[in-house]
């Protein structure tokens, strides 16, 4: 058999391959010869072959057939063989492999080898691929090695213990006695690894944390020695003495000092000392300062120290190094609630970071800016943020809009400004706006009676310029429908009156319904607006009628239904039309609705297809006072004035909503069947409509269970009034991406749980509709509810699997 190629030659040959196919040929040929050589049990070149195989593995080719050869190398007495063998084991094996049992034995032998470097190889391998079984099998050996007097072995054994505890936390107990004395060591490697091990232990168990609190003075002393010690080239990094150790100690101090006044007291001085003495001309100094800021904020530190910490971050913001600026923003975001005023002082710098070329920095700056808005600075901040909204990447826009709406609602100085701001969002962020913003804006405009004329003119102007932006067009259509009569008012202060006629308005709305760019929801808004205008306008009524009749044959069920219904009003009940199309009564909401609206908005409002059903639903909201909306009046009228059926159809969706809660929906549908084709009925009785009623009936608590890649799953939770210890959860899934989610399967696991069938398996894009599913949990032990989620779906052609866990259920659900 010929001598195998040398590793160097193989690498050279692979590198000289011109195409991927050439490379594959070389690799395949070499793999074949390596296999042959393995089969012949060749000992001389096994090491070389495995080394080549590792290179091939790194290029992404399969190399699992070398696993057993690695074990053979490990068993060899030669150091070279062992070195490559263990390297191979670390790369080719992971803890899932069965070969693991075999390697555990070799490790056990080598851990007690007399050569420290062979022991070291075994320890290192353990640190890389230690599995649960291996941890249990070798924990005893490791514990003995921690006590070794050889620092080289000791530090490695300590880190192995660290890995073992990560894998099997139960094994922690056996390492505690050996760990206690470790901080007396002088060797930096040992100190560093010990601090690391203690940190891990403290994070895992509160008891151990309590136990190790007494180490604080000792840690403080080590830290003091570190910063006082003169220059020691061995451990220094550009003039800072062993930053690795300093940072580790600071982190441990943070854990030990958290919620403990005595421990915090002990470390106050040294923290101040490190904070002021660290040289900040280099990155490494900032690394330490960063850690110290976290520690100061994490423990019960003095107020003066906290201000010092925030000021350190303020200085970071001015640094030229973008990494340091990023870290500063990130940290400020974490501490902004603790020290609001201190952070507020750095506002200008933070706002400047909105213009940073780096995406991550911009995102942080945006979040932080929103956290800093208050009623004093809202005008200035909003100007910056609106400017940001215009120029920022699409991924930011949805978040930015929603946050601006919240902030504007909270702190707006006056209504006019508020409406202007929201309108600017509608015009500049276009289709990125979430649908909740639309409903909130409509609510806002409706509430502001004095500015109806101003709003509708502004909106119309904006819609004239661009009628492809769905949210804008929806709001504008709604307003034109409601306040169309004020479009021609010339008394709006400091605004030029619109030079338009009734037919211009109808033209535009017709364009909106007609264009393929409009979503179905938008078309529904527009067609309802047209209908409403028939009561406000005079000259264009026949045209409106024509348009409605045209869409009576639309292939879209909703549009068709609405058009047919509206046309019927014209033909059969013209005397009622004006009354039917009255202005909407003002919807009374609680103040917090705006903020809740951002989260709950979709559930409450999404299902509302047009302004008419909106009234009814709002009236039905348990939170809103039950004022008799005009639709209810109309119904009475309708029934008293003759045939009656047709009026019922007009409000059919609403009636169904009403009756869905009241009970006898059946007779109504029979009634309607006589008059109407079956089509629209299907739409009305679809699961979505039913689910809508369920949601509206719930005064539930809301939990966001899952939010990722545009898929948002929320739970509306409620205790089942009928059954003790049972909780009913309405799961609502929405999709804010531009593509539909299909084949959506939602699975959940909790104590005793039943999942009812979902309303659909498809979630339409851009939050246009939602998917609901009812979950019931039986919890007789009244334990805190936890739930695991598994979600599968197909999105934009790719199959996506997600897992999640929900622990944030409010305790009222089980207490």
């Amino acid at each position: 058999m010929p001598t195998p190629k040398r590793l160097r030659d193989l690498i050279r040959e692979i590198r000289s391959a011109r195409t991927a196919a050439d490379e594959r040929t070389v690799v395949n040929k070499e793999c074949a010869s390596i296999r042959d050589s393995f089969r012949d049990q060749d000992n001389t070149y096994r090491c070389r072959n495995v080394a080549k195989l590792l290179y091939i593995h790194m290029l992404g080719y399969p190399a699992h057939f070398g696993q057993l050869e690695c074990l053979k190398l490990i068993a060899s007495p030669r150091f070279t063989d062992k070195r490559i063998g263990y390297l191979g084991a670390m790369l080719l094996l992971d803890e899932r492999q069965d070969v693991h049992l075999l390697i555990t034995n070799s490790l056990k032998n080598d851990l007690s080898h007399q050569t420290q470097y062979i022991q070291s190889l075994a320890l290192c391998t353990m640190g890389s691929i230690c599995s649960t079984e291996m941890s249990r099998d070798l924990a005893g050996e490791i514990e003995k090695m921690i006590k070794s007097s050889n620092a080289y072995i000791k530090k490695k054994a300590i880190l192995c213990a660290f890995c073992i505890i990560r894998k099997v936390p139960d094994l922690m107990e056996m390492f505690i006695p050996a760990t206690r004395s470790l901080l007396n060591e002088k060797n930096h490697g040992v100190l560093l690894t010990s601090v690391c091990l203690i940190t891990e232990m403290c994070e895992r168990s509160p008891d151990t944390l309590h136990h190790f609190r007494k180490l604080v003075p000792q840690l403080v002393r080590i830290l003091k020695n570190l910063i006082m010690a003169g220059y020691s080239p061995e451990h220094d990094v550009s003039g800072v003495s062993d930053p690795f150790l300093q940072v580790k100690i600071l982190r441990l101090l943070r854990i030990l000092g958290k919620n403990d006044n005595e421990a915090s007291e002990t470390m106050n001085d040294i923290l101040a000392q490190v904070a002021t003495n660290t040289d900040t001309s280099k990155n490494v100094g900032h690394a330490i300062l960063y850690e110290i800021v976290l520690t100061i904020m994490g423990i019960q530190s003095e107020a003066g120290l906290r201000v010092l910490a925030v000021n350190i971050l303020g200085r970071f913001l001015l640094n030229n190094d973008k990494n340091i600026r990023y870290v500063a923003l990130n940290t400020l975001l974490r501490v902004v609630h603790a020290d609001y005023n201190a952070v507020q002082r750095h506002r200008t710098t933070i706002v400047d970071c909105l213009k940073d070329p780096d995406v991550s920095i911009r995102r942080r700056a945006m979040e932080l800016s929103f956290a800093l808005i208050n009623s004093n600075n809202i005008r200035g901040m909003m100007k910056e943020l609106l400017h940001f909204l215009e120029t920022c990447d699409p991924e930011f826009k949805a978040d930015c809009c929603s946050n601006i709406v919240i902030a504007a609602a909270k702190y707006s100085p006056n209504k006019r400004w508020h409406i202007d701001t929201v309108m600017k969002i509608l015009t500049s962020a276009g289709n990125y706006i979430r649908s909740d913003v639309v409903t909130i804006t409509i609510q806002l405009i409706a509430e502001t009676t004095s500015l109806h004329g101003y709003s509708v003119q502004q909106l119309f102007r904006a819609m004239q310029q661009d009628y492809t932006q769905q949210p804008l067009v929806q709001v504008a259509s709604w307003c034109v429908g409601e306040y169309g009569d004020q479009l021609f008012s010339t008394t709006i202060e400091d605004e030029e009156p619109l030079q338009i006629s009734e037919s211009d308005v109808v033209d535009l709305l017709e364009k909106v319904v007609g264009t393929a760019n409009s979503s179905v929801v938008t078309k529904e808004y527009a067609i309802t607006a047209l209908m409403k205008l028939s009561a406000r306008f005079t000259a264009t009524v026949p045209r409106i009628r024509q348009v409605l009749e045209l869409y009576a044959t639309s292939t879209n069920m909703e549009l068709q239904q609405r058009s047919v219904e509206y046309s019927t009003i014209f033909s059969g009940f013209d005397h009622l039309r004006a009354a039917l199309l009255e202005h909407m009564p003002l919807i009374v909401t609680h103040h917090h609705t705006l903020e809740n609206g951002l989260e709950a908005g979709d559930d409450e409002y999404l299902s509302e297809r047009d302004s008419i059903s909106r009234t009814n639903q709002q009236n039905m909201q348990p939170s809103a006072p039950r004022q008799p909306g005009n639709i209810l009046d109309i119904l009475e009228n309708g029934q008293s004035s003759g045939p009656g059926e047709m009026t019922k159809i007009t409000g059919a969706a609403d009636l169904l909503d009403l009756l869905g809660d009241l009970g006898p929906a059946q007779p109504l549908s029979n009634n309607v069947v006589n008059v109407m084709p079956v089509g629209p009925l299907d739409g009305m009785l679809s699961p979505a409509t039913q689910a809508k009623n369920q949601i509206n009936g719930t005064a539930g608590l809301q939990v966001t269970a899952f939010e990722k890649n545009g898929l948002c799953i929320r739970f509306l939770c409620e205790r089942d009034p009928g059954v003790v210890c049972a909780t009913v959860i309405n799961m609502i899934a929405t999709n804010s991406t531009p593509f539909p989610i299909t084949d959506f399967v939602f699975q959940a696991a909790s104590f005793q749980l039943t999942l009812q069938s979902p309303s659909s398996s498809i979630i339409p894009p851009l939050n246009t509709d939602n998917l609901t599913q009812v979950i019931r949990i039986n919890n007789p032990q009244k334990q805190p509810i936890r739930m695991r989620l598994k979600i599968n779906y197909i999105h934009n052609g790719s199959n996506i699997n997600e897992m999640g866990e929900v622990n944030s259920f409010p305790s009222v659900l089980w207490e």
Partner: protein
Amino acid sequence: MLLFSRQGKLRLQKWYVAHPDKTKKKIVRELVTLVLSRKPKMCSFLEWKDLKIVYKRYASLYFCCAIEPEDNELLTLEIIHRYVELLDKYFGSVCELDIIFNFEKAFFMLDEFLLGGEVQETSKKNVLKAIAAQDLLQEVSIEEYLVCLGLQESICRTH
């Protein structure tokens, strides 16, 4: 810890958390594209799933680490830098080719510096000393081995 070239070619990968091979490949591909798509004036950190990615470019090579949210990003840059310094000392002004042709040495160095994802030795001198000693051991045993082989051959011949 990942090392890859500007062309996205993987030069070294070291995992401290177990994943099946397929996942590893997917993660590597994802991270490489993510990091390579960043412009030079952007910062060295990015958030990826529930981890933070810290990367730095040295000549044509990117060094990339995934760390936990609680870890110190700035210090991670120092760790990367320290590793580069170590390689530099060992190879004498290291370049990508050194790491390609001596990838196993780069691994050995990493294993002496980090263990289980944590720094084990902060002294450059100690790391290099340990590596030098092991290299020596490797050569000695090869010589011993050759002697053995020689003996075997002569035995064969005498028979």
